[in-house]
């Protein structure tokens, strides 16, 4: 990622950065720091005051076995929804890249899910997957109880993950398709002349060449599974049943904002932040260096 050619100025880059940094400092770091401070105190919800608590809040969080369940669940959610969404989008993009007759319009439609607000998709999927209404209700009539996300935890989790993956398809598809179309034609032609079958060509030639995009999307997807899951879970399951769809962000939101335990929630957000920063940092240090930007 290193460039050879740079401008060397000292004040100009800061000037360019100033507006963005200012906004980030005011609307991100200032409030975040405040929240982080709560992690080391016991903050009264109505703001009447607080007392220093040291690392007690963290100890309490770590001692709660349900917290670790939530962490594992978030990891599972992140990996499965990312894998589903990216694999689906990649397959579609690989085939769409062949640009066969009549597929142009379909290509456009593949992007649509991207435009949909998470709560809107949540409402639609909830209707579709509701055990008593609409579509699944019919299946449940034949085999009662075969599908019930309102009582069976893994059904609910599956429902949310599928909806999340569906929402991500459009975005991933666009990036994959763009990357595939960015592969110089000469390379593919050379591959064809070597007698590589189309399927082989996909695996051996196209996939390695779009590795930077895959990396970029992987990061974006993992992060979005931590952040964008909120709107979905809030409209679809509210974290239930019995906490089966409670991921880290939702737990932070619930404990802090609904349960009025600002300090416990703040401690959890520090943990979340460390996890995500570590993840990203590793990716940047190891993967981006290895992947060659052509």
């Amino acid at each position: 990622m290193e460039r050879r050619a740079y401008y060397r100025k000292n004040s100009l880059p800061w000037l360019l950065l100033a507006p963005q940094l200012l906004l980030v400092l005011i609307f991100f770091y200032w409030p975040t720091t405040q929240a982080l401070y709560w992690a080391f105190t016991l903050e009264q919800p109505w703001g009447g005051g607080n007392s220093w608590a040291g690392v007690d809040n963290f100890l309490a969080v770590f001692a709660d076995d349900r917290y670790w369940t939530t962490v594992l669940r978030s990891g599972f959610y992140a990996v499965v929804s990312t894998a589903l969404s990216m694999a689906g989008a990649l397959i579609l993009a690989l085939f769409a890249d062949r640009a066969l007759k009549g597929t142009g319009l379909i290509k456009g439609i593949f992007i649509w899910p991207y435009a949909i607000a998470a709560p809107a998709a949540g409402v639609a999927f909830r209707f579709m997957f509701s055990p008593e209404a609409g579509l699944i209700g019919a299946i449940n009539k034949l085999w009662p109880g075969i599908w019930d996300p309102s009582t069976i935890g893994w059904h609910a989790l599956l429902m949310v993950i599928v909806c999340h993956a569906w929402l991500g398809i459009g975005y991933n598809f666009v990036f994959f398709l763009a990357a595939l179309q960015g592969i110089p034609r000469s390379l593919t032609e050379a591959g064809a002349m070597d007698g590589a079958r189309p399927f082989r060509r996909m695996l051996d030639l196209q996939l390695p060449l779009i590795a930077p995009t895959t990396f970029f999307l992987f990061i974006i997807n993992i992060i979005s599974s931590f952040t964008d899951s909120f709107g979905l879970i809030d409209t679809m399951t509210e974290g239930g049943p019995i906490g089966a769809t409670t991921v880290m962000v939702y737990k932070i939101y619930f404990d802090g904002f609904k349960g009025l335990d600002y300090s416990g929630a703040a401690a959890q957000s520090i943990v979340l932040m460390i996890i995500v920063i570590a993840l990203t940092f590793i990716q940047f240090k190891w993967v981006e260096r290895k992947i060659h930007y052509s």
Partner: protein
Amino acid sequence: MIERSRTFDTVTYFVMAVGLIVVIAPFWVVLVAGSQSLQEVSRIPISLWPSNHLMENLSEAWRRADLGPKLLNSLIVAVGVTSGKIVLAALSAFAIVFFDFRGRMLSFWLIFITLMLPLEVRIVPTYSIAANALSPFQTILDTLGITGLVQSLTGIQIGLSWNLLNSYPGMILPLIATATGTFLYRQFFMTIPDELVEASKMDGSGPIRFFTDVLIPLSRTNMLALATIMFVYSWNQYLWPLLITTDRAHYGTAVMQLKALIPAQNGTPDWNVTMAGALIIMLPPLLVVAFMQRWFVRGLVSTDK
């Protein structure tokens, strides 16, 4: 395509068809349910064919959620965020990618980390900031003792205050303060060959010239892609506008109204109206994406073939 293989073409069509069904099914269900009457939508199994009540459901949803002004508000916010973001993100990414200065990586990480902690988890302090966006400066002045000094010298009490609750800046500015755009520009700027920079340097033009004459024209399609992304992102915001607009009649946005459309706890389950409303609310970003699709896709293609 380079060569034809009939079996592979069949596979291609098959995969595309399956993909199409998966992608379009939820849209279809929303459309179908939105066009049915209450009796039809409550039927199990539901008919998968549209009925003829679409218009009345649409107008009922429009009326119930007061969508006229709400859509306008959404538009104002989306356009504000989009244009602000395109400009600010380009500037900051330019600084990070093309300059060698102390604090380069620090700035990058300062901006990049904002991707990681979603608004939901820091919503209470962010709300306080929105109530007075200048409070950080007030605190700084206070801790430095400047407030006290000025007061003792001039008798004037410094009280900085800028309330963003129930206002368009309040809905727009915090959304601009995220890293998505910077990250995207960065990815694109990284692909600009060093030779271009060197050539520009050799012409004797400075960084600003390079930015306006070379980078901006080169990244026009990227900007369109970013514009699409930001429009969709800001249109689809949910929790933030919900929190900072207590004056819903004047500042409510369309997506917020989804909640008003979900059948109330003690109401009739008229999912048909809910779905019709969802249809209206979903439409603008969908249109933008569909219309911008060509540039959207192309804007993300690296240009260094």
